[in-house]
């Protein structure tokens, strides 16, 4: 009996220790890459999609830093089309020599993952368009890699900017070990030729705020392109009808601080489709941030007190007249 009890206790102890040592499940966001194929011939232009699996936790900010085999792969373009990132901190940076790509973007309100019934893919961060370079001298089979660096970060939509636990998966490509027998394919050009839709409609606002540009007038604007992605903006300020386009991004410091020019902002997507928004700046007094000069408030207060005092004096005079009309007893 004692042996039985002892054995039983040992089993229980073993089970307890066993469960304690089992790896606990830790939810983490996963950054990963996808492409349509794994083997390409020299000259092929193909697309690598960068995606995120948020593991059922709301995230709102992504900083992605990637490395790629710069001797085998050449970056042709970067597309924000179909990206869940609605706001970008600057433009994606691409360094061909170092083989590095980086971008920072966010989703206002956060991204919570795929909803039941969603008919398509909705976790795309962006696309990198690569071209496979030529063979090496010995024509050997070559492998190109694209990986997320450890410096990549994903932040939770928790109001604190907490870093999400993150894992990342890279991707490998092989160069075909034979001479090219057909015209190199170009997946990107196929998408560009299909895209006839301009960027989404947007508004342009003229603003003024002490926290930017030393209080000078500036423009804010933002839009997306749901097909090949937004490429860049141009801004034109003109007083006499001629357009004077310059590349720019929001916030954009206006050259004409007198606000007498007609302002146009053009959004251009990767396929060259354009959407232009034109505004005539309102009078400067309308643009002031919702703040009335404290001097005016002081004047208003003085005015009210003065009116009150005047009414009081009038009333007092009237009372005096009444008083003296009454005969003294």
């Amino acid at each position: 009996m004692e042996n039985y009890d002892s054995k039983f206790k040992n089993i229980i102890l073993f089970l307890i220790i066993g469960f304690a040592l089992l790896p606990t499940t830790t939810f983490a966001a996963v950054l990963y890459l996808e492409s349509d194929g794994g083997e390409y011939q020299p000259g092929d232009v193909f697309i690598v999609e960068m995606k995120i699996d948020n593991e059922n936790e709301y995230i709102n900010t992504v900083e992605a830093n990637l490395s790629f085999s710069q001797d085998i792969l050449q970056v042709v373009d970067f597309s924000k089309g179909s990206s869940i990132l609605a706001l970008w901190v600057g433009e994606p940076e691409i360094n061909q020599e170092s083989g590095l790509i980086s971008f920072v973007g966010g989703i206002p309100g956060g991204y919570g993952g795929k909803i039941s019934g969603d008919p398509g893919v909705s976790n795309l961060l962006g696309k990198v368009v690569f071209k496979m370079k030529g063979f090496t001298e010995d024509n050997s089979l070559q492998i190109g890699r694209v990986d997320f660096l450890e410096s990549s970060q994903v932040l939770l939509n928790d109001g604190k900017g907490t870093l999400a636990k993150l894992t990342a998966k890279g991707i490998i490509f092989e160069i075909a070990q034979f001479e090219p027998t057909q015209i190199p394919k170009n997946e990107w050009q196929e998408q560009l030729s299909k895209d006839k839709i301009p960027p989404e409609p947007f508004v342009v606002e003229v603003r003024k705020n002490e926290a930017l540009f030393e209080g000078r007038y500036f423009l804010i604007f933002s839009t997306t392109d749901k097909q090949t992605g937004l490429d860049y903006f141009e801004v034109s300020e003109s007083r006499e009808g001629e357009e004077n386009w310059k590349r720019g991004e929001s916030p954009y410091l206006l050259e004409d601080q007198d606000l007498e020019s007609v302002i146009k902002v053009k959004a251009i997507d990767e396929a060259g489709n354009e959407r232009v928004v034109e505004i005539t700046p309102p009078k400067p007094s309308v643009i002031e941030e919702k703040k009335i000069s404290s001097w005016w408030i002081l004047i208003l207060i003085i005015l009210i007190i003065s009116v009150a005092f005047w009414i009081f004096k009038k009333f007092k005079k009237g009372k005096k007249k009444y008083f003296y009309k009454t005969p003294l007893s």
Partner: protein
Amino acid sequence: MSKKCNLKVKIFLILLFVGIILISPFFNLKKDNTDFLKNGISAEFIEAGFIPTSVIITVCGNGVLDTGEICDDGSNNGDYSYSTEDKFCNTSCDGWASYCGDGTVQSDYGEECDDGNNASGDGCSASCQEEGGGGGGGGGGVFIPPAVSTKVIIKGKAYPLSSITLLQDGKVATTITADSQANFTAEITDLTSGIYTFSIWALDKQGRRSITFSFTTNVAKDMTTTVNGIFLPPTIELSKTSLQRGEIFNILGQSVPESDISISINSPEIIKNVQAETDGTWFYAFDTALLEEGSHAARAKATSPEGLLSTFSQTLAFNIGKEIVGVIKKADTNKDGRINLVDFSILLYNWGVPKNSSADLNSDGQVNLVDFSIMLYWWTG
């Protein structure tokens, strides 16, 4: 003498009152619906949320019968049919498109009559033509293709008669009002197909704001994408935030009428339950004697009478016996009551070492990813 004094005082007070009313918009002296944007909040207890399982998407026009749809004939949705047997679904997938035999004369499609059947010999032929006395030939109507558009419909529950703001990729798309039972339906048309992030937030009857609920979905071309089952968490407010142990204070807010409110107070976690009134308002008088001195937080979630479960509300901090620490600065950098592109612009301009500390939301001396993330959490559009 005293009468004169009283009169003077009365006149002065009236004028002072009028003056305050006149200048209050500039000082924002009336209750500010966006106070939460301007006040710091203890970061300790806030958590990232998740999408509740009640939220589902159905697509009308994809040829697949999704939950909640009566029918779906894909690209044939909305087409006219010459018989009851071959009728097609309408463009909302909640009924049938026009057909001969539906009891309504569709003259646009050549119908001369429609007696609700496809039988002949009863005065109206099987093809909806008048019978007897030289009645006309068959059909011959002009085919009018149904208008198709790319549309999104968003349905759910907020608070009775609440004002609801719907954002599309961070920008205000529309504002609507919930009905007296807190139900709302928002519709967005004229979209291009693609991936969108939609966000919803609401103001309750006291001007308290809900959290922002966001979801990302594909919107298919020439189809109606309907998002069902959204249930905004309750609004929440604390009558006091600095308390002495043993003091009682109110935790209150608004939700769906007669929903069950579960209030979670940390830490350690204490759960209290209360039922919302017929107008959705709820409150609980909490005794701080149950807690130790220190920082604590409260949040609430609701279960609707139909059994839908919301996620948690905003988390509000309070302290017993000591000051709140770790306050995150207001995200409304330009103090206009909104957190939107203007604030983002200020953030971008001050990226790195800030020229203006208003953009440094967590007061760590830098404007970086963390400040960006904090701003996105409070985004109002």
